[in-house]
Structures are given as C-alpha cells and as structure tokens.
C-alpha cells in the first residue's frame, strides 16, 4: 500500500481486530510450532511415532490455514510444506529432519516478527 494512501475504514477496523486476535491466539500458534519442533526432534533421533507424526501433520495444517489470514503468506507456504512432509504418504523420511527443523525455526521467527498496524493484513501480499 502507498504509505500516503489512507486505508479504507473497513480495513482499519479489521486490522485492529486482527491485531487483538493475534495477541489472543499467539500462545496457541506457538504451541503448534512446539508440536512441529518436538516431532522434528523425534524424527531426527529416529523415534518419530505415528501419533507424533499425525499431531505434527494437524499442527502444520492448522498453521497453513490461519497464518495467511493474519497476513503471513510465507508462513502458510512453509506450513503447507511441513504438512505434506508429515502426511505419512509416503512415510516421513528421517532425511527430511533438517528441512523440517528449518521450517519450524522459520515459522517461529515469522510469528515473532509479525508487525501490527493499519496495514497489518497486507504486509506480505
């Protein structure tokens, strides 16, 4: 958005409300990333259980669905990648541990650095 251009009233209202919701749901989003990090540690150690893989798949699916709604389009792309790798079809490859570790780290950084404000939603569009 042009910095001199005023956002539409709807956008201001939505941005403000989204920022409040972001604060409310941030701990929940971080929990989902913790699930991915735990699964990744287990995968790297060759001890990933079916339950852990399914939990990581669900956490990644949820993150993919929600991050873009808060303006973090890149977060959705990364989470989708993790969702596919944890889908179990084919079996999650221990070789993917490094890649999944990077994804979890990147998601954590993206979430930590999300900027709020009038243009919050459109930051990455």
């Amino acid at each position, binding site marked *: 958005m042009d910095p001199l251009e005023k956002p539409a009233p*709807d*956008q201001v209202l939505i941005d403000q*409300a*989204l920022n409040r919701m972001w604060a409310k749901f941030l701990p929940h989003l971080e929990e989902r990333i913790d699930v991915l990090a735990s699964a990744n540690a287990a995968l790297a150690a060759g001890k990933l259980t079916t339950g852990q893989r399914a939990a990581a798949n669900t956490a990644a699916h949820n993150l993919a669905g929600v991050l*873009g709604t808060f303006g973090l389009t890149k977060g959705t792309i990364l989470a989708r990648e993790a969702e596919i790798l944890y889908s179990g079809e084919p079996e999650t490859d221990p070789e993917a541990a490094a890649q999944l570790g990077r994804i979890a780290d990147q998601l954590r950084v993206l979430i930590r650095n999300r900027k709020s404000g009038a243009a919050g939603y459109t930051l990455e569009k």
Partner: protein
Amino acid sequence: MQHRILIIDDEDDIREVAALSLETVADWEVEVARSGAEGLAMAVASQPEAILLDVMMPGMDGPTTFRELRKNPATAHIPVLLLTAKVQNTDQRRFADLGVEAVLFKPFDPLTLSAQISQILGWN
C-alpha cells in the same frame, strides 16, 4: 441487507476471524459452532441463510456434517460452503463432488470473505 450465517469450525482462531470479518465488513449476523454435531443442532434451531463449514474437524468432519444437513428436511435447503486448507486437486474434486455450493480456501482474506460469499450465493 443483513444476512444470517452459521460458521462451523473447530479451530478457535479461524472461527473467530471469520466471524469478525463477516460481522465487521458486511454487518451480517453470525452464529458459530465448534463441531459438526453442534452445528447440526444450531442449523435446525436457527435456520441460517447459509453455512460456512470447515472440512477437517475431529469427530464429525465437514463432509459428514454436510451429508447430515442434507438428510434432514429442516436443513436440506440451506446452502453450504466448505472451508478448507486442503489445496490438492484430488481433495478439491472430492469436495466439489459432494454437492456443496462452493469450496472456499484457507487462508482467506478477512476483507473480502463476505464479498466472495455474496457473489457465490447471489446476495449482491
């Protein structure tokens, strides 16, 4: 014109953002349900004009909830829009074959969600 819509989604964040979007941008009356079973009961009781239904939910998932809505004469006429984060073509075809009004994808844009729904349902 104010419309009434029911959102069925087990994820708190998605459900609340969708409700906020439809209430704030379009001034619609929004009801929310946290599960397919709760959504079925609410649809019968409140007779919304449309239902926004998540696909992946624990217990009764979106497609099963949709089939139950269609089986019940009290809800069979209510248009249903599926909301999904699944982007694979096979999933999309499977959902479209169910007979829903439309399939919408997560993440959605909170600023344009109501316009998208309005266009699909001819509410413009």
